[in-house]
């Protein structure tokens, strides 16, 4: 494996040891092999430490740890597990969401490349806690090397008796299958993922019923992010208190952050939650140029202005108070040389391309916003275009089945709110900017 950016990252920062809950093997040679992983303590929990505990104890443990979903929404993991009804007579499925697609996010990819066995260990623990017999890892189709690596790791685990019948000599059995997606962003939405897993078009389902009650194959299903599940073995080993030693009270533990953009050392870093953004930038070698703003948690998260970024800390609550979100932990600071409308255009094009096409507002709205932005950036913008796209984004923000549309609306709304003058400058470049557009009503044939 080639060395990835951001590594080796410092083990200590300002005199304090940085957590290695998730990234312990990232810098270890051949850490993806079972032998090396075992040397470093992976699968240490698979034995009496796990099987002497009851399912409810494990769920309570994860609840107490305060672990929250790392895929983007930050839903408390223990609570999600507790929603699974017991004694329905149906199988319970565990599905690992490895369809990492949020622009700027590349942490799960690294996890699967460098430490697939920790994921498998987490899945065994989660599977045991929920009574799962069959689990799936749904991997984004483009991540072929990661899929190979996962399959190799799973084979090693089967050969070592860590998967399959009677894991580690216990009564518990678990099978894991890797399912390769076809590379659609929307398949990272849990019901879209389930549809795709079942062989249908990857389009989100109407809720209710929620997946915990009726998900994959109409059975109770828990969908968790790779990073979330990889934190579980540590919680089992060190207890909820051990996990809470890192992070803040409401956002405990550590998180992987993928940072790119105008930063000296982009890459994946594991830091405790609650660190300030500016300090984190420092840890990553510092910013390039003068900060103009920052996308704090993946392209869906509303952008923060420079002032807001200086106030923000890496936890769920701080960003919620700034009307943004920690999301998947993809941080993109940008400096004053950035062409903001082009930046938004890139984001808008992504969402127009990835809209699944199911709900009218998102299907038509994302495409339309993208094309108006194209006009603006091409120097053909007209007065009123800025308000128009803002208005259209407001229209599709909450009117759809899934959270894709709000995720597509927030960057548009926040960029326009915070960098309006950048867009106006583009529009002013058009000598005809005051002229009205040829509207639909003036087309022949449409005389209504």
């Amino acid at each position, binding site marked *: 494996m080639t060395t990835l950016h951001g590594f080796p990252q410092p083990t200590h920062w300002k005199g304090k040891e940085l957590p290695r809950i998730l990234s312990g093997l990232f810098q270890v040679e051949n850490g993806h092999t079972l032998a090396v992983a075992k040397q470093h303590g992976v699968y240490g929990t698979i034995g009496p430490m796990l099987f002497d505990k009851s399912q409810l104890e494990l769920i309570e443990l994860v609840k107490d740890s305060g672990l929250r979903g790392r895929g983007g929404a930050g839903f408390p993991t223990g609570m999600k597990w507790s929603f699974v009804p017991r004694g329905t007579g149906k199988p319970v499925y565990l599905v690992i969401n490895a369809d990492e697609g949020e622009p700027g996010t590349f942490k799960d990819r690294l996890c699967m490349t460098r430490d697939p066995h920790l994921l498998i260990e987490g899945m065994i623990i989660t599977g045991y806690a929920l009574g799962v017999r069959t689990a799936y890892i749904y991997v984004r189709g483009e991540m072929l090397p990661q899929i190979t690596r996962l399959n190799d790791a799973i084979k090693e685990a089967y050969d070592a008796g860590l998967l399959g019948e009677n894991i580690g000599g216990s009564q518990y059995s678990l099978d894991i299958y890797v399912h390769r997606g076809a590379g*659609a962003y*929307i398949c990272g939405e849990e019901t879209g993922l389930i549809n795709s897993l079942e062989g249908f*078009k990857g389009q989100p389902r*109407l809720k209710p019923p929620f997946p915990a009650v009726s998900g994959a194959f109409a059975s109770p299903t828990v969908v968790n992010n790779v990073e979330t599940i990889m934190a579980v073995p540590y919680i089992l080993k060190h207890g909820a208190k051990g996990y809470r030693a890192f992070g803040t009270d409401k956002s405990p533990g550590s998180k992987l952050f993928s940072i790119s953009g105008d930063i000296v050392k982009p890459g994946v870093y594991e830091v405790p939650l609650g660190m300030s953004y500016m300090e984190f930038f420092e840890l990553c070698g510092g910013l390039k140029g003068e900060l103009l703003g920052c996308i704090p948690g993946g392209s869906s998260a509303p952008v923060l202005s420079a002032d807001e970024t200086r106030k923000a800390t890496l936890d769920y609550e701080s960003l919620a108070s700034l009307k943004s979100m920690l999301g998947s932990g993809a941080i993109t600071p940008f400096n004053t040389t950035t062409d903001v409308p082009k930046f938004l255009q890139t984001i808008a094009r992504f969402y*127009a*391309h*990835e*809209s*699944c*096409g*199911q*709900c*009218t*507002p998102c*299907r*038509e*709205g*994302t*495409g*339309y916003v993208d*094309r*108006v932005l194209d*006009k603006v950036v091409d120097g053909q913008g007209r007065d*009123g275009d800025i308000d*128009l796209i803002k208005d*259209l984004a*407001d*229209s*599709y923000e*909450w*009117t*759809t*089945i899934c959270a894709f549309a709000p995720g597509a609306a927030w960057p548009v709304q926040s960029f326009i709110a915070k960098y309006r003058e950048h867009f106006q400058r583009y529009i002013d470049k058009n000598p005809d900017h005051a002229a009205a*557009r*040829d*509207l*639909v*009503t003036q*087309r022949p*044939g*449409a*005389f*209504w």
Partner: protein
Amino acid sequence: MADTITINVDGKDVQVPPRTQLIEALRGPANTETPAFCYHQDLKVAGNCRICLVETEGPRGWALGISCHLQTAPGLKVRTQVSSDKIVKLRKGVMEFLLVNHPLDCPICDKAGECTLQEHYMGQGKHESRLDDAVGKQYKGGADHRFLDSKGIERGGKKIDLGPSIVLDQERCIICTRCVRFMSDVAKSPQLDIAGRGDHAYLTTFPDEPLNHEYDLNTADICPVGALTGKHFRFQQRVWMLKSVESIDPSDSLGANLTIDYNNSGSEGGKVWRLMPRRNPDVNKSWIANRTRLLYQNLAVNRLTDGKKAGGDCTIEDATIAAVAALKGAKRVAIVASGHLTTEDNAAVLALAEALGGKAEVFGGSWLTVGKADGIALSGDPVANRKGVELLGIKDNLDELVAKAKDFDVLLVAGNDLWSASAEKAAKLEVIPTRIALSAWVDATVAKATIAIGIRAWAEVRGSMVNCNGRVQLLQACPVVPNSQLEAAWSVLTALSKAAAKPLTWASEVDAWKSAQARGSAFAGMTYRSIGPMGQQVALSTTTVQPVAAGV
């Protein structure tokens, strides 16, 4: 009212059925108009058009939801467009999105006048757009109106031949997936699907596969825009020029409910233009088979518009006189009833036999093959009124007639094409010297008859039939008739009763119905009004037929 719960709509308490789609409660008991494109009563909920948005109160305050997916529950509080400006604004937004890539070519669209999109568009008074179609879906503006998909491949088009019965206009499609759901969930033959993503998604069949299902024309009915149109009705008539009467499928014993759409002005002097399914949740839901739908095409073809005697054409009056004379002089008359005619007509068969006294004997039945029910809108039995004939006490004994054919000197066949059903068996009836046929079409039986009298076809009479599940259903008369001299079978049979000592004196089909009621106890107490457009079930003890499932 034990089965209702109270919900609050726009501040008013309304009694609604529990656990039903909120949209039904709004449209029904709450009397609040709610638009919908993807929602259809007889299809699974998809929830993709988003126009039926409402606000409901939940634990975290007022939240947006779609009324087609939300279910009614006690205490539910709803805000619709009546009390929420937010809903008005968001629905306008959705409508705007629906129209961005819709051509609004209503003047050349067959759906205009019965188009859901047009209805709501006009309803909102949104006659101006702030959206620029040059920023739309990159239609090239050529004659074929194609667009480039995300891979730069040309898609779409104004006239895509999907199969033998349906044409697709891609740019009108609003991706509501009603047709996709119909084909997969009702027809159980998923021949249609949406390909692509985002606003480059498009409706298509599978590569090199046509849309060719027995029920595919229903997709044109449920299409909320003019994207799918039936070839049989394309560019034929503007729908607002049509009038409708309610009737049922006369070619199958489920009796799928339908309307006959016709006009009786214009250069052709009146014409039936199409048959449309009429929703009846207990019979055929919203569906009819293509076979049923295209029956109207026979209404003006090969009709027996006059009479026939001694091999030559004559007027209906002359044929009737000849038939009366034959009946008068007959020693033994065999009268064959028909499950293809109404219960009223068959009551007239019985009444005529009664009037003729001991020399007449009534036979019934059919030699047509009975198929299997398809679970949608066909029972498989081509004898539509088999049950009605049975309830009148007429036996299924055609073979008995064949066995003793030589005992008779006059055969009267009322609307039962015996020679087409089985030429071999019917040939044995040719020993009867005088054969009188009453028929709407020039069929094989008319060819073998010595006297033939034209009658009105199913679309042109008022009467009733009993379907295979024992449901009495009405046929209403469409005024378009190939010859105004034609009468319904019961009326012709009444005229033939002049051969008897005491002729029948019926003035209308109501008299015929009263006669049927006197003969079939199952019809006791039923009037045309009580039967109504949705039909009325006969008491179950009198039915012995296995119920046929309707719809899904």
